[in-house]
């Protein structure tokens, strides 16, 4: 009996270590590929100039158009989905609590979370045609917001559900309304978690290519107007990888490296901000 238990324990330990190796190993290999292939092509001009000779064949210039475009697209979409997602999550948690409506909304958001972004792209494009918009920064932001919203809303919903119910009661007992309790108590209590939800959505948004392909388009210019097309890093990688020119393909890896570094910087910044927000959290 005890021997069987021992064997069982060993088997599961081996399986867990194997999973860990697969996960960490594949991540490490991705990073290694990006760094090894991208670093040689990365230079100051890549970061500070727009492409020369066109994004598809140009060996000169840089990807500043895509860097600024991605920041504008994902930044705008994240701000919008933060505002909308927080409203949805607070509504689900404070006003609709356990109603059938709340369950339906949660189910819908879970389905939306899993829909491939190319479908959002197609839907966003239809929406833009209807609104009379052409491929533009604004169109891209609207579509990316739709991609990010289910992530933000559901993640925040789960985070707020973790706050002890007694905390709400403490606020209600002082005569606070549900809205006051939501704003002044729940948002503060769950601040670090809400920020993590935003980070999750930002990561998806900044790395998404398919949803912005038709809606934001692509351009060699910097994004200076909401009504003009905007470039993005994932599409830069996509176009550069697709050329027959080896130098440009190397630049694709440099673009991917830049994207990875941007995500890393955002993650570290969020971490430190989270630490500061944790000061007042009640456990």
């Amino acid at each position: 009996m005890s021997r069987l238990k021992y064997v069982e324990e060993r088997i599961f330990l081996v399986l867990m270590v194997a999973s860990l190796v697969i996960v960490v190993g594949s991540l490490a290999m991705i990073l290694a590929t990006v760094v090894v292939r991208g670093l040689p092509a990365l230079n100051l001009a890549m970061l500070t100039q727009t492409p020369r000779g066109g994004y598809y064949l140009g060996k000169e210039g840089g990807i500043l158009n895509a860097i600024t475009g991605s920041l504008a697209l994902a930044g705008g979409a994240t701000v919008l989905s933060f505002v909308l997602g927080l409203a949805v999550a607070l509504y689900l948690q404070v006003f609709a609590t356990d109603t059938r409506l709340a369950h339906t909304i949660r189910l819908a958001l879970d389905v939306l979370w899993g829909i491939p972004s190319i479908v959002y792209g197609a839907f966003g494009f239809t929406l833009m045609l209807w609104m009379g918009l052409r491929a533009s920064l604004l169109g891209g932001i609207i579509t990316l917001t739709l991609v990010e919203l289910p992530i933000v809303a559901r993640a925040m919903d789960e985070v707020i559900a973790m706050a002890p119910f007694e905390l709400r009661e403490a606020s209600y007992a002082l005569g606070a309304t549900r809205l006051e309790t939501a704003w002044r108590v729940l948002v503060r209590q769950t601040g670090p978690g809400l920020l993590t939800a935003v980070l999750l959505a930002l990561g998806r948004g900044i790395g998404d290519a398919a949803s912005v392909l038709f809606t934001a388009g692509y351009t060699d210019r910097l994004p200076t107007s909401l009504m003009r097309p905007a470039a993005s890093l994932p599409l830069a990688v996509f176009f550069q990888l697709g050329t027959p020119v080896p130098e440009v393909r190397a630049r694709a890896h440099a673009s991917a490296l830049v994207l990875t570094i941007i995500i890393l910087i955002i993650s570290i910044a969020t971490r430190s901000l989270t630490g500061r927000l944790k000061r007042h959290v009640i456990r």
Partner: protein
Amino acid sequence: MEDTALQIRGLNVAYGDQQVLRDITVDIPARQITAIIGPSGCGKTTLLRSLCRMAELVEGVRVWGQVIFDGKDIYAPQTEVTEVRKRIGLLAQRPFPLPMSIYDNVAYGPRLYGIRQRAVLDEIVERQLRAAGLWDEVKDRLHAPASALSIGQQQRLCLARGLAVEPEVLLCDEVTSALDPLSAQRIESRLLELKANYTIVMVTHVLRQARRMADYVLFLYLGELVEYGPAGEVFNNPRQARTRAYLAGEFY
């Protein structure tokens, strides 16, 4: 009897099909301490929480009957529930400070009611922290997180926070049961001081505590009011057999 703070008339509470309070009718005297005693699960906490409309926060609860406070039924449709909860404060069994600083915890209520001037808030925070007996321990770190306080200090902070909205009634739900003996004693002596200005209703499991503090005693058994009267009479000369049995420790 002195003037009455709360008139409870035919109050019933049910969770789903299970009725936990039956036809409670009793007057709670003003500026006295009334203790609700009774065995576990007899509805003490439910009764207390239904006096400030906090009982209804539980899913599937139904409350019917009247609780008349200041001439008005707190369960009347036109009554503002936030107004009821402001004027009838509740101190919970376990302290839950709000996720903010000590100062902001006490200022939370006054700010809800539109007080913004720093000087006014400063005065309220100091006065209520003194009333709760916490001022000397925290006056140098008012802006530190409330979560860093000990649990006994947290309970006094919750008392100060509750007092800051200037309620007329204080409902205390076994407020010392999570505390160490010294902290419990501090809370007790504060409540005894506060009864000069506040009507206090407390739930307690500890009969000795009820003997020490209560002016009136209300004995609940299986959701029914069995006996009610001045503490001396109920403790020394109970009229009902069930009260006698409970006080003698025959059941808990």
